[in-house]
């Protein structure tokens, strides 16, 4: 059974990969290592996991305005998620993607998306214009 979601593309694009749904708010600055993509935020439930190559689903963002820089560095280092799905509109992370685009570096789609119904490990496909398809593994 595939679930289809109509999301709002903040930065349009296509991507697919396994879902990683964070279960607590995160600040990319201080919370994600910019060269390894590992979550390092103290006491974060997903601490030690890597966001690279995942479709990263973020229920809530917090903290530092330096998170754009971490996003840009992840893109430049090839350690970025495949896509970002944000439960609420945010300008700080997409900005790192906009700057990557200006620099001619690889970018990823960023969508404002209803995350209810997406769980860890789901296969997520993002298509142009904001279409999101979710396939439950197994």
């Amino acid at each position, binding site marked *: 059974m595939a679930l289809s979601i109509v999301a709002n593309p903040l930065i349009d694009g296509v991507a697919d990969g396994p879902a990683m749904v964070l279960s607590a708010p995160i600040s990319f600055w201080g919370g994600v290592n910019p060269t390894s993509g590992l979550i390092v935020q103290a006491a974060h439930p997903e601490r030690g996991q890597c966001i690279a190559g995942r479709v990263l689903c973020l229920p809530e963002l917090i903290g530092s305005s330096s998170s754009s*820089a971490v996003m840009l560095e992840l893109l430049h280092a090839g350690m970025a998620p495949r896509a970002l799905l944000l439960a609420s509109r945010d300008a700080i992370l997409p900005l790192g993607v906009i700057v990557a685009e200006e620099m001619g570096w690889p970018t990823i789609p960023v969508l404002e998306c209803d995350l209810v119904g997406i769980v860890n490990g789901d296969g997520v496909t993002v298509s142009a214009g904001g279409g999101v398809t979710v396939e439950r593994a197994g």
Partner: protein
Amino acid sequence: MVLHLTDTERGWLSDQSQPGRAMAMRIAVKAADLMGASELVPISHSHIDGCLYHGDSGVLFCERLAEQGARVSVPASLNVGALDLVHPELIGGNAARRAMARRLMDAHTAMGCLPTWTCAPYQVGHRPALGEQVAWGESNAVAFANSVLGARTNRYGDFLDICLAIVGRAPLSGLHVADNRCARVVVDVSGLSEALRRTDAFYPVLGAWLGRAVGATVAAIVGVPADVGEDDLKALGAGAASTGAVGLFHVVGVTPEAPDLVTALGDTEPVETIVVTAEMIRAARDALDTASGSAQLDCLAFGSPHFSHAEAKALETASAGMIFAVPVYVCTNRETLGRLEDEGVAEILRGRGVTFVVDTCVVVTPILKQQAGVMMTNSAKFAHYGEGNTGYATVFGGLADCVASAAAGRVVRDDSRWR
């Protein structure tokens, strides 16, 4: 919402004679679209957070802007970098990293930014006025500018802050708009003991609690003593902006947009009123300790946000006659350290075991001597980011607890006011 640009602004987008400004304008316009802004608003000041090295990518971006002739069009103060240019020997890490950090700082000054290198620009002369439209980065500075000064800014991230300073405009949305500045939540701390509310450590803890409780929602806090100090409000904002996306809070009877609760709420009903209990505050304080229960102590860190002159003087007074048994780092800016040098206070504190760090701080760049250990601090922001950024587990305490612990070489805390 469709973004309307003036003819001048639209012209900048593709102005071949000013490619740096054109790049900044394209980024500003895309960000404005993301924020749902209908137009751009002229700004009079910017505080730029993008000068802190996070990796080579940001250096390459800022150098591209500078090489293409971009210059800031409004006064622009700079946040901390990753180097202490006055005490370069303090900074560890490899030489390549230090060289890139320096290139990033140089690219910003080349674009005309002021070399203030501080996360507390508001305590060294950059104090926008009530109602002034500005574009600030650095989450604690944003909270202070909006809340304590009544200036208007959103929480701008790296790269957008420099772009907005170049184009002299910000997306008209969020906290730039008067209606969005009204409190939606009331936070009542009046039931807490007077002694607790007059303790320095209460404010960073209240901030840390507030960020978790309200996220980005504007809160009006009632029950704070009317004579609360600026450094307490600074600590409150820094804590709140670390644990939550707090860009603005009101302290009723204290901050400029909250002479009374009705005004703070913009004459509307709050969606929620939270009565803060001593248990809630204690839990928030305990959450700032990642080194639970241990008496081990390897260093102390003060100055996130950068220590003010008054905070340094308070440290001097509180530690009279002591020699610290573990390293004590005081992070501040050049201007404040200069005053402390002139007054002989810096020398006195160094004699007790203080190391001054300027232009940067111990949590954003490698300064601490070990890979891991226990750091005690009176800053909720240091406590929140300390372990992730430095490997040091954290213990939170007020100034008096920190000083007593530094002298004893182990964690010593007086819990009497928190019960």
